[in-house]
């Protein structure tokens, strides 16, 4: 297939996933902020949310203070922010339009209708009082898109590239959501293991739809290292770094097979990352620092994306 087509499919999937992920991160921020308010402990939740999405630099060149309203607007609809939900939907559709011929009708419908609704300028529907409805809607649309392509695309290289886009973005996002916790400061009198800390971890699990899964897997009250283990190392957790990494390795292998055995640096990086996660232990990760581990993972994801581009997309 055309390199440009593969590139568009890859990015189209990444941007749809990112729209959903940003929505999930805002949900965490929202929940943490409301809990802090109810415990009369207003903190820096929105600032942390910005850092977690990687949008903090862009935000502070435009705004001086990270108040709830401004941050939410910047993350949801600001066209100047390339990672705002609306920008993601816009970019996804632009990529889709460029490769219309490579999409199934169901994929196109899912994308196009999402874009049309985001554009019908019904300001009231997207107002702050409807924030959670809007975020749910974005999640639904992204899930619809994932379902549409998983169920209708031919299992060929086009599908593999789309799949790669989804999982690289998703892994990146899970790492970032976990990292929110690092950036949210606990007030002095609220120690680790206190009520607020507990709610933070709960918010993180909820945002990746994993609160029930946690209880199912561990049958224990929330413990930070177990939450981290679930989201990093557990193979049965579909958004965990290990699960995503498995998918990435699998689809890179399928590509290599389809293309007569051609492999590159991206295959090596993906394999190495996967091995680390497959055989890693949570106590080791905590020992050397969860934040450092996540930062390193995010960097490696970026590198992996670059190497995939080099081998296939240029």
């Amino acid at each position, binding site marked *: *297939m*055309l*390199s440009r*087509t593969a590139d568009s499919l890859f990015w189209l999937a990444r941007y749809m996933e990112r729209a959903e992920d940003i929505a999930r991160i805002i949900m965490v921020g929202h929940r943490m902020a409301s809990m802090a308010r109810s415990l009369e402990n207003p903190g820096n939740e929105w600032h942390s949310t910005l850092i977690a999405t990687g949008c903090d630099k862009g935000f502070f060149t435009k705004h001086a203070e990270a108040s709830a309203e401004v941050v939410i607007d910047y993350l949801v609809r600001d066209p100047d922010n390339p990672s705002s939900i609306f920008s993601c939907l816009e970019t996804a559709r632009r990529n889709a*339009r460029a490769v*219309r*011929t490579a999409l199934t009708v169901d994929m196109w419908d899912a994308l196009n209708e999402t874009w049309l609704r985001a554009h019908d300028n019904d300001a009231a529907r997207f107002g702050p009082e409807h924030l959670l409805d809007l975020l749910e809607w974005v999640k639904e649309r992204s899930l619809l898109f994932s379902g549409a392509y998983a169920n209708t695309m031919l299992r060929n*290289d086009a599908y593999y590239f789309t799949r790669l886009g989804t999982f690289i973005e998703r892994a990146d996002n899970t790492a970032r959501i976990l990292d929110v916790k690092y950036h949210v400061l606990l007030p002095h009198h609220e120690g680790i293991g206190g009520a607020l800390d507990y709610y933070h971890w709960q918010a993180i699990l909820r945002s990746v739809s994993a609160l029930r899964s946690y209880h199912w897997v561990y049958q224990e009250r929330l413990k930070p290292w177990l939450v981290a283990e679930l989201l990093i190392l557990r193979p049965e957790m579909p958004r965990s770094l290990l699960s995503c990494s498995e998918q990435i390795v699998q689809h890179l292998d399928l590509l290599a097979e389809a293309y007569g055995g051609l492999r590159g640096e991206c295959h090596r990086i993906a394999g190495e990352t996967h091995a680390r996660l497959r055989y890693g232990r949570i106590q080791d990760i905590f020992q050397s620092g969860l934040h450092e581990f996540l930062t390193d993972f995010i960097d490696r994801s970026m590198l992996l994306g670059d190497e995939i581009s080099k081998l296939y*997309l240029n």
Partner: protein
Amino acid sequence: MPAGELSGGAKAARPSFDEMGSAGDCRAQYGLIHRWLADTPAELLSLKRREAELLFRRIGITFAVYAEGGNPERLIPFDIIPRVLDAKEWSLLARGLAQRVRALNAFIRDVYHERQILRAGQIPFELVLHNESFRPEMQDFEPPQGIYTHVAGIDIVRLGPSEFYVLEDNCRTPSGVSYMLENREAMMRLFPDLFARHRIAPVSHYPEELLDTLKSVAPENCDGDPVVVLLTPGPYNSAYYEHSFLADEMGVELVEGADLFLDDNIVYMRTTEGPRRVDVIYRRIDDDFLDPLTFRADSALGTAGLFNAYRAGNVTLANGIGAGIADDKSIYRYVPAMVRFYLGEEPILKNVPTYCCGIREDLSYVLDHLAELVVKETRGSGGYGMLIGPHATREQLAAFAEKIRAEPPNYIAQPTLALSTCPTFVESGIAPRHVDLRPFVLAGKEIRIVPGGLTRVALRQGSLVVNSSQGGGTKDTWVLEG
């Protein structure tokens, strides 16, 4: 040139021919449609129209309108009442179209080779050789099968039961065929019963015919099944939807200039598996932007070196470069002469009498009769920059006369034609509106024409301008099987 029976303009214009016929005197091919319109309540028609709009919006048919702000993906209005031609009418048209396109291709080949028609004094040398659409780079180059315009859109207007006139030939990159196909698709979904009661010639095989045509002009040195691609300027082009639609239907890659590259005068596309050779390019980019090395250096749309590969016979471009010389507005009036000269036949389709303001007698006639004429820029297209005399104010006429005097060769004029009308569903109900027809003629080893074409309709009452950029709509065009 004698203006003949068509002259006289608006004042003397007879009432337009209505293709359904007058009340109580319905033409045979419209019998069922007439009854259907009478039996269907207006609310139901409105409902169907809304359904149609929804359908089109979902399919994503859009058309960017250059001069308009706002939503760049405005829909072209679709009228739910079909236009019907019977088998006899179509066979006359089809013969006329094939004849005309054969002559146009022969003409293009001739002007880039022996120039016999110029030598014979049928067309002035300077009109061709000094024409902006003439491409000296193409001289003495022989494209496969001697074909230059592989896809021609011939715009037809109708003035009476058997009076079909060609208004304009489009030999470069005519668009609109996707609307022909989608309109049919929409009609079949919206009105399956009405469909079942007619025997309508299918159109959905157009992409296959197009692909066969393109393969039939593959370079001689191509062995095996030719690799065909469709070259588009990209998603921001107004016809992008059509490009992606056709590529999809043909099952060929939709490429942009940057997807192609040249190596040793051979064209390759960049794929995830490495370079792949390309044999035929159905290009929807204008000559000027095709190759920055040969044509406009500032073009970011094309591919450097493409022209040399074409001339080396390593790739076929469809349509060929330089085909525009045949559809130039100042050349138009010589097309009947081409038919006689190259084919030794009488033209089946008539030309509209045309005055070239570059010719002294014509200029003075045009200036004297401006209020009756339609004046077009020779380089204009899409209905931009034209004057419709009978609809213009005194000030507009005076201003336009100034423009013509300033640069006469830039303008041609034609009598205001009483275009035929078809019943159309507009705000006020069902009313006659003016229509034209763009059939698409495919020329490769043989000539193929899918029955029908794109009917464009001027939705405003009395308007004669059917271009979508000027508020025109489209209709499904039915050719009944005999």
